[in-house]
């Protein structure tokens, strides 16, 4: 059993018609997982016994015919806390951490009868773009196991691309859902800031973090966002706006839609083969009756610097909680309390996490605050103004998700700045709090290339509508890696 030939709609029909029981589906999922994941290492922890028990109970209760996610196996990124299921954020700091509560999104999964298969690998504390920063294992790209799956939600992306699960959830602070979705040829949505509750998401950059779904098709993605969206009393930044049905309006009709293509997203810093894929996508949108015009986001080039100041500053504050006292790793043979703090943090965090904490602490420190943190916050405003100006005249923005296809494992990990530049096209979206989605748009040298769609605040629906029209007119989403499933 893999999920290459079935989407949520067809799986749901099989479950409702009892062609397939939830228990059979869960068993088959774990059988496939054990074979396939031996090659790509996308999962950190499995939830097998509980998943099978849940599936059995669900079969006894009956599948709700109105809930397309009932009985569906799901992967959850390991920075989203799951009650009684070890949650590590891929850090030695949390190697043995067992949460006492569920993230709100996890509660919604279980209340809606989804079957949690396990926790997916990631860059430690979501800091990185390759999943090489995991303290435990390096996930491989199922299209070419010598290449990275991207990150930080690399485990979730690889698991979906390899047909292990039809849906996985990730988190995106600067591109961590979209870039791995691009690298793996799947659909990944970073919703508007505030669309989804962050309660139970292990905090990285609190003004940037959002949880979102990763799937093989646009429609599946819309259904998976329906599940987790909405206000939550536990997250004061979650919006009270009404949540539309994101699967409505998927009719393939985008005639007259006004699409903007920022020239900065097609400049010489972008791999020419990636640009070719995007140019072909532009033609496809035009053939579907949309207009595509060049625009400018002049401050987007400063996004990487502004982001690494802001995100690192927020991270340095958020990660102060890891002190070796109440939970998490505590160093041995310590002399006094100060020693517990310093040695536990120095031994428990990996290098990239330390780099971000150092950058953040520096940017916030006396004498540097104005030149760095304050300045970055002003540049953030200019980046938002650029987007607002474009959205006065256009319905959405398109461009590449990442400057290149997936790179080789080991190629960039020793050079932080090169790694940071992977996020150049995704970061501005987080800084502005906008929704952004990556969808499969073609291939470069056999590796998937993603198209990024950026929308107005709280207008995920337009992204899904445009993405669905593109998907129905192309067959990139039907391509699957040879390694996965029953190939």
């Amino acid at each position: 059993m893999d999920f290459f030939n079935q989407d949520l709609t067809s799986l749901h029909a099989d479950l409702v018609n009892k062609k397939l029981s939830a228990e059979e589906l869960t068993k088959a999922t774990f059988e496939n997982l054990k074979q396939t994941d031996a090659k790509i290492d996308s999962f950190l922890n499995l939830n097998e016994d509980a998943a099978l028990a849940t599936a059995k109970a669900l079969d006894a209760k009956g599948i709700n015919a109105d809930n397309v996610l009932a009985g569906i196996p799901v992967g959850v990124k390991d920075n989203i806390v799951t009650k009684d299921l070890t949650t590590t954020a891929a850090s030695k700091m949390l190697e043995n951490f067992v949460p006492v509560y569920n993230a709100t999104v996890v509660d919604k999964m279980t209340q809606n009868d989804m079957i949690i298969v396990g926790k997916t690998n990631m860059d430690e504390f979501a800091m990185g773009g390759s999943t090489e920063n995991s303290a435990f294992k390096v996930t491989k790209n199922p299209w070419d196991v010598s290449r990275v799956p991207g990150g930080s939600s690399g485990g979730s992306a690889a698991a979906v691309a390899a047909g292990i699960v039809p849906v996985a959830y990730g988190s995106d602070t600067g591109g961590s859902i979209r870039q791995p979705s691009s690298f793996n040829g799947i659909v990944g949505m970073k919703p508007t800031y505030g669309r989804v509750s962050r309660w139970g998401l292990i905090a990285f950059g609190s003004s940037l973090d959002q949880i979102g779904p990763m799937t093989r098709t646009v429609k599946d993605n819309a259904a998976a966002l329906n599940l987790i969206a909405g206000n939550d009393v536990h997250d004061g930044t979650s919006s009270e706006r009404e949540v539309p049905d994101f699967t409505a309006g998927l009719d393939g009709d985008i005639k007259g839609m006004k699409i903007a293509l920022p020239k900065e997203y097609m400049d010489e810093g972008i791999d020419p083969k990636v640009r070719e894929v995007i140019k072909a996508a532009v033609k496809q949108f035009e053939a579907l009756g949309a207009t595509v015009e060049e625009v400018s986001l002049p401050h987007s080039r400063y996004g990487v610097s502004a982001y690494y100041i802001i995100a690192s500053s927020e991270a340095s504050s958020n990660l102060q909680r890891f002190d070796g006292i109440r939970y998490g790793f505590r160093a041995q043979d310590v002399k006094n309390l100060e020693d517990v703090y310093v040695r536990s943090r120095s031994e428990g965090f990996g290098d990239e996490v330390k780099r971000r904490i150092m950058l953040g602490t520096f940017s916030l420190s006396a004498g540097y605050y104005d030149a760095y943190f304050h300045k970055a916050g002003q540049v953030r405003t200019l980046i938002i103004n650029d987007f607002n100006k474009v959205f006065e005249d256009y319905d959405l923005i398109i461009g590449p998700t990442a400057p290149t296809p997936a790179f080789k494992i080991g190629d960039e990990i020793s050079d932080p700045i090169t790694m940071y530049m992977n996020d150049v096209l995704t970061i501005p979206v987080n800084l502005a709090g906008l929704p952004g989605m990556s969808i499969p748009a073609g291939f470069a040298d056999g590796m998937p290339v993603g198209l990024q769609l950026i929308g107005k605040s709280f207008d995920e629906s337009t992204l899904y509508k445009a993405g669905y029209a593109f998907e129905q007119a192309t067959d990139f989403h039907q391509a699957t890696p040879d390694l996965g499933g029953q190939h």
Partner: protein
Amino acid sequence: MAEERINAEQVAHVASLAKLEFTPDQLGTFTGQLEKIIGMFEELSTVDTDGVPVTSRVTDRHNALREDVAVKSDERAALLANAPETANGLIKVPAIIDESGDGE
């Protein structure tokens, strides 16, 4: 901004603020990397931001108020199970001041 963006001494100071410690080798590596990254940050000084307000949040909400309702939680055992060291239902930590010789 100064020509030398950050030196090993400053990095060691920032590390102490962040409750991290580095070996001399690590300090050298981190200083070199931070020097480069902070060098990249300096491109921001070329952006005209006179009179531009700071954005520090992008939520559409201002104050999020709710009724102050007490909720009973019965998680003491589960919470303590995550603590590195406990004694008598409490979290145990070493002495704040170094007590030389006798260990605790």
